[in-house]
């Protein structure tokens, strides 16, 4: 495992702790989806996106928007880590008139590109951005994360057809397939499998990865577009609430209202994960430096 993958895993571990911090402030939130996609969001902001937090509206920046806007805590955490705003602002999460609500507001939070939350909106907005950036002749790319639970919204397939018909290879959609939504298994609630085949049939270049495996995530995102002239769909198989073992892969995690004990338990676990990652990286750096002497 290369050092930069471990560094990204450390960032993801820190971001997971910030999600808990927001949960402590707001008492409840969409934790499951935030933690299933947070490795991907971390990889995007720390490895993939051509952005400058000091110049968040630069016209040539890459764009990222969450179609699954309820996973906003993941984006807030990573934006804070990336330097868009101080981490302690996240302690206002969920409060009256806070910049940080359950769904993102581009007019309140630096780095947010779209006011998502109603499902099935992000892909068409992202396609419009990709189209506009291509018309301008920029090399900017647009990334979006959809949830598997939002795929039954027909507007996704309007967006999918637009992106393919217009050959938007500067558009990369990651579908966070954690196979859970409020009512249970997504495949039981409304089975949209085979997801990869559906996007492929619409004319997209498609690949499937483990969305909680940082190495796979970064390798795949770096290789986009997978095929010139086609939008890229990355079907990311993930675990809902990844990182909090008591909560992982449960529908209950979709919108979690932890008591103090459960929150503390999660905090201990995520802190331990962070410490282990830091230790692993430190060992690796030591080993690497010894090896190079």
């Amino acid at each position, binding site marked *: 495992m290369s050092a930069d993958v471990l560094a990204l895993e450390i960032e993801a571990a820190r971001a997971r702790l910030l999600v808990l911090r927001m949960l402590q402030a707001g008492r409840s939130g969409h934790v499951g989806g935030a933690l299933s996609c947070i490795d991907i969001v971390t990889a995007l902001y720390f490895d993939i996106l051509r952005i400058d937090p000091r110049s968040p509206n630069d*016209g040539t920046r890459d*764009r990222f928007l969450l179609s699954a806007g309820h996973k906003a805590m993941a984006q807030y955490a990573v934006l804070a880590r990336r330097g868009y705003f101080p981490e302690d602002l996240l302690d206002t999460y969920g409060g009256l008139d806070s910049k940080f609500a359950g769904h993102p507001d*581009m*007019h309140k939070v630096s780095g947010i*590109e*779209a*006011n*998502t*939350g*109603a499902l099935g*909106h992000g*892909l*068409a*907005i*992202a*396609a*419009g*951005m*990709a*189209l*506009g*950036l291509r*018309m*301008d002749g920029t090399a900017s790319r*647009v990334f979006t994360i959809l949830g598997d639970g939002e795929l039954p919204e*027909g*507007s996704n397939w*309007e*967006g999918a*057809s*637009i992106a393919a*018909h*217009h050959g938007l290879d500067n558009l990369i959609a990651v579908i966070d397939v954690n196979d859970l939504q409020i009512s249970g298994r997504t495949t039981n609630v409304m089975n949209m499998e085979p997801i990869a085949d559906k996007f492929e049939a619409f004319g997209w270049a498609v690949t499937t990865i483990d969305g909680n495996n940082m190495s796979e995530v970064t390798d795949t995102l770096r290789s986009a577009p997978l095929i010139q002239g086609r939008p890229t769909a990355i079907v990311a198989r993930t675990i809902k609430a990844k990182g909090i073992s008591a909560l992982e892969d449960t529908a209950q995690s979709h919108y979690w209202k932890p008591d103090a004990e459960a929150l503390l338990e999660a905090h201990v676990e995520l802190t331990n994960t962070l410490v282990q990652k830091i230790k692993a990286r430190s060992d690796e750096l030591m080993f690497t430096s010894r090896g190079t002497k």
Partner: protein
Amino acid sequence: MTSLTEELIDPRKTFGEAVTSFAASDPRVVVLSADSGNSSGFGTFMREYPERYLEFGIQEHGVTGVASGLASTGKIPVFAAIATFVTCRNFEAFRNDIAYMRQNVKIVGRNGGMTYSDLGPTHYSLEDYAIIRMLPGVVVLSPQDPGEIRAASAAMLEHDGPIYMRIGGPLIPNLFPEEPFVIGKGRLIAAGTRATIVSTGPVTAEVMKAVSQLRDDGLDVELIGMPTVEPIDAELILSSAAKTGHVITIEEHYVRGGLSAAVSECISSQGVRHDSIGLPHQHITTGTYSGLLSHYRLDAPALHSRLSELLR
């Protein structure tokens, strides 16, 4: 007080030409089509600016989202199609992706009202003023004649923010000398003291004929044309209502929620009588357009008779 000339003009062609002319000097203007561009008057635009003419096929929700994304990159997207499809079909995208995101997008509903008279209620748009004026920050325009369509199109493209504009389909007469369009300003068509009549959209042509007859009858009514439904020109309405004490609104829209409601909200604390003329709250029947105007008592003879009754 009737039309300036006998000539009848195509509102869609007028609108398309106005946008095309504006786009010649502003490369940010892009036209979005949901299989609707050519019939929205963009034939010339398609030929002159093919790189700025974007076709998406029949899907209004998706196109509204795309318009939002394009606006994020600095474009001025103009999305025109049948009025009900760009207000009802895509309403949540209009609400979230355009209004809530405060995007500089222009959505134009053509064949508004019941102008698609032979096609029936699926193709009518009689609630568009009502639902779109509920979206904070969205301007709602309803120009009354070709000159206003041209001027309103330019004002719409100059305005930085989301706009919905309704135009019709059937040919319409020139009513006014053309002048620059000011969003939010009404037009005093005839000054009077007996009552204030407020009208919007192309039905104003019928209202003007009716008012002309009323004045011949000796009824000195004031007529205000209101090509901006939101934000409504409260100042003009309030000053006129204070003078006449009686306001009558006329629109090709359900009497609920549209111009009537906007005017009512404006004068409700003034102790002024308000009567509303528009479409009844039911599924409207089909026929020829002139037949429907007559059936629902919105043509000049019926308006003359209704207004005479209200002013008795």
